[in-house]
């Protein structure tokens, strides 16, 4: 392990791998020749031609590496390639364990740590102690099951896992052989019961939690190199020798190496094992592990051979061949599928405290029985450590992702509105928490005790009600605030600005009419669209017409306001050129009711494109535009939203003038952070004023070049607005996307002038907030505007002890002005469990939410720290989380296994996706603006959005029968999952690709594209022809439904295999090594394992 770490090269993953490669290669090489194991590798290699090339280098390196396993450095490439190969090779998503197994062997010899199939299930780990392992595994699994969700599925897998894990361990540390033996035991302990039973094995499938464990103990060859190894078949020989030595040193290792190269030797032992185990494993099938496990066992056997492994080794051999799949490592697809199958059918009832909701990828209904729906609040963990010490130890961030105005599916009712009349909502006198189901009524109902601060309050006479025998109020069920997790109060005048009920909000459309905007056709398009769009402004309830007033401004380097008063025959334009000191030139007639001024508005929208048709003005201003909108709202004494349509860097002489400071040379330097920071503080100041006025800014950008999104998005970001960016906008290509976004943005329900406060019960406290908002103090989140897509992520810290009995309560109160100008309070309550055992914490975590938090944390970090530091921090934190688990909840003694908690088994893969995202590791083609854009987008994304954003969905379109109308099951985002005879759809919430394999059947091409051959398909096509056949309709339908799920319109891009656009597409295959240096999943897993081991040692 150490060695790996030492590896200087930046991509820790990459580097280590090389070393491995060397080893593995050797081993693999052997494999191909002989035993099953090799074959498996071969298979992988096969698929990935490209990779093979790499091996050679690997080979050369191999020798040295062998010599100095620690050197790990060089190997990077090889390792990666290796992984890639795996991906390619396999056909199946599911079980990949086998592959791992193979690698393991390789590792072991070298001493490198192997990632055993990191499978979630701890069971796998057990494998090391061959037979016993299984038992242990099972035990663990069992434990896992208990914890949670996975239960059913996992059990089977558990078995499977067992073996794989063992393998892993084996690979890692030879020395370990001994260790391995121990592992199983170690693992067992965590499980509690299970360990004892080594013998028992199968029973447990459940164990999902810790599943994988790489054992590659620290010993020399820690690196996952094993992975790489596989690649280099040819090299294998070179490797072998080396490996052998290692092996020699550690008995177990040797065994493995054999597996690889010497398949022969190891093989033999394995086979036996296999046979026996395999069956078991397969049965178990967790998503990922299923079959694979077998192989693992093999590995195990070789190494420990003697010791615990012995047993395992046997089985592996046979398996290896099949297992070559990378599928052995936890598969997001499988996890998602399982959750869907297990939890999608029953509604999620929120009555029970601390329940972990189904994954965001699962469709489920929610029944509110006292806690807020997960659509409103999701937590990283539903079981919080009682003490801060525990929390620090676990390093699991305690955070809630809150989406206060989330849209609900039609089947679910929106929150009840409670009107307490003039007295207003009932609150605790001390902490000001609002009445909620957790408040305790005492003294016969005359008083209530606040569940947050324990203060005893009098119940006002008009609110008095008797209690029943259980101490509940008799009317509890009739009052939403006593029985539901989410509800609204009508606010009294005390809750309004200046103690005046608010006026209905206003929308102001501010259109750039400089040369670029005119030339691209944007202005004409926009004006045309607005004519009809204005009839669909958000309205409340059954209101006949929207209360929202509208106003119009156009601008280039001066601003043009329009008087569209209904009494005018023609609109009037008022030019304000004093951009240095912006003001609103008119009051009456600027903001008007759409219906009343229909004719004048239409006339205006007709004339705007004409008036500026010949403009040659290229300079624009920006800050003054926002200022103007804000001043207009101020003059009208209302809140509202500005829709800004802007094209270029504002270089005209005015406040907020910007320079082109884009400098790619800064990337990977300490100054890189400046690219994310605003150029000038002017925009923050402006944003502050906007927030004070309740002026939310939505920005639509149409840049042809650098516009400094980092600076321009400051105001939208701080005012709860959205930014949309359409680079190189062309009406023909981008109209659909823009108009669709615009329609949605204009029509969506928004709350204005909002203040959000999160209260917690004594013991924890909200300490940090992420999202699009402004904070003037440490507690109040101020949002000039808040829509149903925006989330606020809140992090909590302990400031005292919690206790298991009371749990922890959150109450999120959002005070806002509705579209109709009604002042309301929306309350969301959520009760969480508290635990004194870390295992409880790990059992109730939600990885998606965790990733959401970590991504936001990291994306904020890039503003102040070098990107590399941010990445390292993430990795370290992740390693700490997993190490803590390993240390406290899994088998404490086994260093060589990678053991992941069931709930977090996807943490590495997802985290890797975050790490290699454009913000944290930009590729050459990613512009500074793109990064800033994504950075701010992610800041207010909800869990579902971050999930798909970081790990895109890849849907095969032609695999399932055409008649099958359900959404096809996704496949893992890796190139090796693509078959060139198929067509795939990939989406990440922002982009939508249709990938066409080079050897897709002509019939398919014909029915989808209306052309006769692959070569005739236009690359980069963004619209599929509408054809009257089943396939075409199905694909169109699928695309439509995907778009409907996302808050932004995804423009389709057709990518042909081997086309130059494919590079772009491949960027989204996040399990592969990325061009920008991002590690492949497997590499990263190895690295993570190494980190964990280091922490543990």
């Amino acid at each position, binding site marked *: 392990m150490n060695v790996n770490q030492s590896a200087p090269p930046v991509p820790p993953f990459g580097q280590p791998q090389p070393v491995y490669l060397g080893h593995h290669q050797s081993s693999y090489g052997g494999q191909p020749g002989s035993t099953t194991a090799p074959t498996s590798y071969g298979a992988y290699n096969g698929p990935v031609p490209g990779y093979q090339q790499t091996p050679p280098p690997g080979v050369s390196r191999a020798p040295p590496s062998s010599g100095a396993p620690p050197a790990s450095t060089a190997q990077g490439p090889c390792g990666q390639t290796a992984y890639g190969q795996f991906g390619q090779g396999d056909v199946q998503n599911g079980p990949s364990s086998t592959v791992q197994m193979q690698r393991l062997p390789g590792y072991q010899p070298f001493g490198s740590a192997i990632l055993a199939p990191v499978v979630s299930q701890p069971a796998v780990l057990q494998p090391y102690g061959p037979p016993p392992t299984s038992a242990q595994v099972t035990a663990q699994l069992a434990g896992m099951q208990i914890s949670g969700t996975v239960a059913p599925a996992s059990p089977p897998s558990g078995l499977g896992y067992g073996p794989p894990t063992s393998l892993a361990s084996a690979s890692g540390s030879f020395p370990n052989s001994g260790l391995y033996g121990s592992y199983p035991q170690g693992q067992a302990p965590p499980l509690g019961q299970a360990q004892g039973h080594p013998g028992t094995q199968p029973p447990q499938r459940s164990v999902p939690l810790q599943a994988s464990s790489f054992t590659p103990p620290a010993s020399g060859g820690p690196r996952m190199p094993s992975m790489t190894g596989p690649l280099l078949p040819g090299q294998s020989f070179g490797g072998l020798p080396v490996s052998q030595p290692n092996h020699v040193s550690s008995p177990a290792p040797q065994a493995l190496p054999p597996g690889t190269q010497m398949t022969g030797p190891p093989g033999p032992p394995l086979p036996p094992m296999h046979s026996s185990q395999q069956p078991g494993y397969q049965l178990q099938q967790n998503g990922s592990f299923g079959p694979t496990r077998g192989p693992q066992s093999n590995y195990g056997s070789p190494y420990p051979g003697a010791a615990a492994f012995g047993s395992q080794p046997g089985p592996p051999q046979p398996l290896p061949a099949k297992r070559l799949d990378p599928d052995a490592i936890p598969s997001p697809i499988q996890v998602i599928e399982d959750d869907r199958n297990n939890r999608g059918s029953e509604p999620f009832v929120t009555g029970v405290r601390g329940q972990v909701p189904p994954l965001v990828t699962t469709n489920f209904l929610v029944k509110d029985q006292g806690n807020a729906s997960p659509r409103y609040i999701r937590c990283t963990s539903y079981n919080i450590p009682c003490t801060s010490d525990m929390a620090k130890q676990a390093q699991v961030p305690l955070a809630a992702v809150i989406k206060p105005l989330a849209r609900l599916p039609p089947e679910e009712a929106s929150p009840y509105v409670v009107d307490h009349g003039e007295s207003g909502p009932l609150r605790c006198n001390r902490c000001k928490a609002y009445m909620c189901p957790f408040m305790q009524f005492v003294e016969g109902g005359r008083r209530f005790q606040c569940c947050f601060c324990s203060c005893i309050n009098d119940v006002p006479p008009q609110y008095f009600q008797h209690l029943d025998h259980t101490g509940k109020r008799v009317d509890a069920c009739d009052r939403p605030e006593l029985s539901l997790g989410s509800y609204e109060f009508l606010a009294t005048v005390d809750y309004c600005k200046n103690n005046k009920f608010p006026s209905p909000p206003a929308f102001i459309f501010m259109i750039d009419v400089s040369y670029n905007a005119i030339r691209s056709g944007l202005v004409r398009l926009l004006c045309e669209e607005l004519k009809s769009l204005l009839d669909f402004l958000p309205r409340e309830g059954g209101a006949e017409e929207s209360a929202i007033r509208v106003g119009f401004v156009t601008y280039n380097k001066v601003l043009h306001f329009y008087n569209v008063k209904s009494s*005018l025959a*023609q609109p009037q*334009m*008022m030019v*304000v050129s004093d951009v240095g000191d912006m003001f609103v030139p*008119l*009051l009456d007639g600027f903001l008007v009711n759409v219906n009343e001024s229909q004719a004048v508005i239409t006339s205006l929208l007709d004339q705007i494109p004409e008036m500026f048709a010949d*403009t*040659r003005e290229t300079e624009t201003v920006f800050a003054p535009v926002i200022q103007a909108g804000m001043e207009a709202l101020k003059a009208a004494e209302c809140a509202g939203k500005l829709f800004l349509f802007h094209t270029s860097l504002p270089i005209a002489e005015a406040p907020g003038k910007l320079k082109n400071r884009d400098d790619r040379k800064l990337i990977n330097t300490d100054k890189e952070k400046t690219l994310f920071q605003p150029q000038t503080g002017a925009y923050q100041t402006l944003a502050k004023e906007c927030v004070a006025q309740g002026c939310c800014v939505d920005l639509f950008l149409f840049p042809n070049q650098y516009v400094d999104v980092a600076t321009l998005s400051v105001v939208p970001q701080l005012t709860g607005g959205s930014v949309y960016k359409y680079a190189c906008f062309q009406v023909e290509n981008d109209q659909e996307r823009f108009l669709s976004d615009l329609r949605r943005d204009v029509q969506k329900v928004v709350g204005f002038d909002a203040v959000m406060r999160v209260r917690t019960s004594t013991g924890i406290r909200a300490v940090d907030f992420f999202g699009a908002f402004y904070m003037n103090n440490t507690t109040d989140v101020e949002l000039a505007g808040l829509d149903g897509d925006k989330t606020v992520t809140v992090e909590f810290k302990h400031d005292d002890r919690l206790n298991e009995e009371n749990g922890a309560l959150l109450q999120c109160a959002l005070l806002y002005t509705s579209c109709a100008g009604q002042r309301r309070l929306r309350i969301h309550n959520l009760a969480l469990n508290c635990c004194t055992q870390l295992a409880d914490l790990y059992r109730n975590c939600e990885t998606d939410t965790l990733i959401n938090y970590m991504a936001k944390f990291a994306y904020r970090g890039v503003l102040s720290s070098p990107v590399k530091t941010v990445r390292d921090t993430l990795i370290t934190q992740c390693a700490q989380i997993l190490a803590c688990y390993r240390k406290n909840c899994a088998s404490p003694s086994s260093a060589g296994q990678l053991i992941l908690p069931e709930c977090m088994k996807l943490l590495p893969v997802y985290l890797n996706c975050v790490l290699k995202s454009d913000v944290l590791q930009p590729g050459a083609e990613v512009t500074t603006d793109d990064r800033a854009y994504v950075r701010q987008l992610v800041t207010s994304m909800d869990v579902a959005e971050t999930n798909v954003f970081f790990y895109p969905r890849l849907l095969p379109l032609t695999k399932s029968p055409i008649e099958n109308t359900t959404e096809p099951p996704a496949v893992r985002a890796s190139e090796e999952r693509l078959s060139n005879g198929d067509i795939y759809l990939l989406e990440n919430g922002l982009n939508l690709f249709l990938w066409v394999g080079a050897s897709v059947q002509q019939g398919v091409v014909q029915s989808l594209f209306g052309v006769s051959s692959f070569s005739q398909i236009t690359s980069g096509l963004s619209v599929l022809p509408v054809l009257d056949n089943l396939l075409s309709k199905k694909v169109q339908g699928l695309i439509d439904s995907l778009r409907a799920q996302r808050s932004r319109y995804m423009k389709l891009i057709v990518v042909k295999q081997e086309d130059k656009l494919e590079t772009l597409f491949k960027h989204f295959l996040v399990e592969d090594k990325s061009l920008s240096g991002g590690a492949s999943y497997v590499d990263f897993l190895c690295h993570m394992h190494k980190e964990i081991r280091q922490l543990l040692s």
Partner: protein
Amino acid sequence: MPQFSTVEYVIQRGAQSPLIFLYVVDTCLEEDDLQALKESLQMSLSLLPPDALVGLITFGRMVQVHELSCEGISKSYVFRGTKDLTAKQIQDMLGLTKPAVPVHPARPAQPQEHPSISSRFLQPIHKIDMNLTDLLGELQRDPWPVPQGKRPLRSTGVALSIAVGLLEGTFPNTGARIMLFIGGPPTQGPGMVVGDELKVPIRSWHDIEKDNARFMKKATKHYEMLANRAAANGHCIDIYACALDQTGLLEMKCCTNLTGGHMVMGDSFNTSLFKQTFQRIFSKDFNGNFRMAFGATLEVKTSRELKVAGAIGPCVSLNVKGPCVSENELGVGGTSQWKICGLDPTSTLGIYFEVVNQHNAPIPQGGRGAIQFVTHYQHSSTQRRIRVTTIARNWADAQSQLKHIEAAFDQEAAAVLMARLGVFRAESEEGPDVLRWLDRQLIRLCQKFGQYTKEDPASFRLSDSFSLYPQFMFHLRRSPFLQVFNNSPDESSYYRHHFARQDLTQSLIMIQPILYSYSFHGPPEPVLLDSSSILADRILLMDTFFQIVIYLGETIAQWQKAGYQDMPEYENFKHLLQAPLDDAQEILHARFPMPRYINTEHGGSQARFLLSKVNPSQTHNNLYAWGQETGAPILTDDVSLQVFMDHLKKLAVSSAC
């Protein structure tokens, strides 16, 4: 052609530029006022020659410069009313600056035949007549709410600044007229005269004396700066102020005084006073040309015995030094050329000379001194013209030929010129100082030209050519030009403005109003401006230039009340009543600005206009001493002409002086 002392030449060289009228309109008006003003403005459009360029700026809380060239949507550039902008900023913001760049960044849409951007704001009337008429018709009152107890926010200072800047940037050194219509005082921004709190009244003379007018100095400076800029570019500024309260004319007076613009003060735009005055601006001569001229320079050349000491009138110095420029300044001096941006037939400059007694070049006996006035100007027909007037006067020796001088003395002209000097001084000095100076001058004159025995006041005599002079001075001392009592600062400024530009006859009327008497005793006759002229059976018609007062004596008024005029048998009474009315109409018809027309009677409150003017020969103090029933006693402590004269005589004969 020696008999013609004045010759005018028409210059054909140089481009002729059309007349330019820039309307600057206050929209913080009452609805009917605004309506009346809009109508007047629309009417004026019909009076303009078709090729005249017009522009429109409106202001209230904001200032809007209307772009007149556009079709479809009406456009205007809006400026904050609180911010002082430099000429360059204004031109930048209006898109008027584009020196080197051939591209028109602001709005290249403009037609090519108008290379000048200015065409967007100043358009030939024939092109945009309809548009502008509609635009004026659609003008709304300033839409910004005015809270209780506040004045509307009125950005006059900025509006004027923009108007000046606009013309400066587009038509420098071309005759142009900025016509500023205001319905109240500037209440914000540069040039503000009073705050918007109604409870704080606008400054009075009292405040000014107490140095309690906090905005005055700054505002004055602002308008002076604007006036100088406008004058430098040959643009004149008119101010039409119609409000019941003061509007800040005191601060703004330099705008008209330095540029030769008109200053009109009325109570409301919805009065005939304003409407007819305004209409009269566009009156035409026999050739159909406006009675106005622009961008004039007046050059004075003298023979070498004379030097020019200065000029007083609607002009600014061009700072042209020369051998004929005196070291001693009287009025605007130190130059032999002045610029007069706006001229009309009544515009008059008082020019002061000094006789230089050079020892080595004594004035030749019997010789003549010559003066030539050369006036370049832009005629309203857009021609450039030069008018040359030459005069020569005989020299007389002050010692030996005093009689000649006495005989040639024009006491009326002298009174007016002295009055101008006095008024000029009054603008910058304390009132009493000016009066003392005036008295001293009068005494010295009397000492020089009077015939008397020393120390014997009764022996004092003045020759005929001087006889009226002291009386003029007496009335001048009492006039609103030197007395601020009972006048607001605005009124004083208004009176002084007109005094400093009217010709001799009008000026004399201003100094000593004319009083006519109508009675059954004979034909109408001028009578003494004296309280003794106020008799019960007379109708008096007084013309003070600013006011026309018809005053019915007590008896006449009673008759009128009794309705005798309607009885056929008393038709002569009817005629008697009608006669002053007809005469008044005649005066009204010719006068610019329209005087205030007052029809009052004995005991009427408006009779004060008459009573304040007449010589208070009878007052409550001496009423019984006189013991006559003739005339009406005036309730005042002012000295009467008689007392004044007695005093003057005493001082004149006193050797102590």
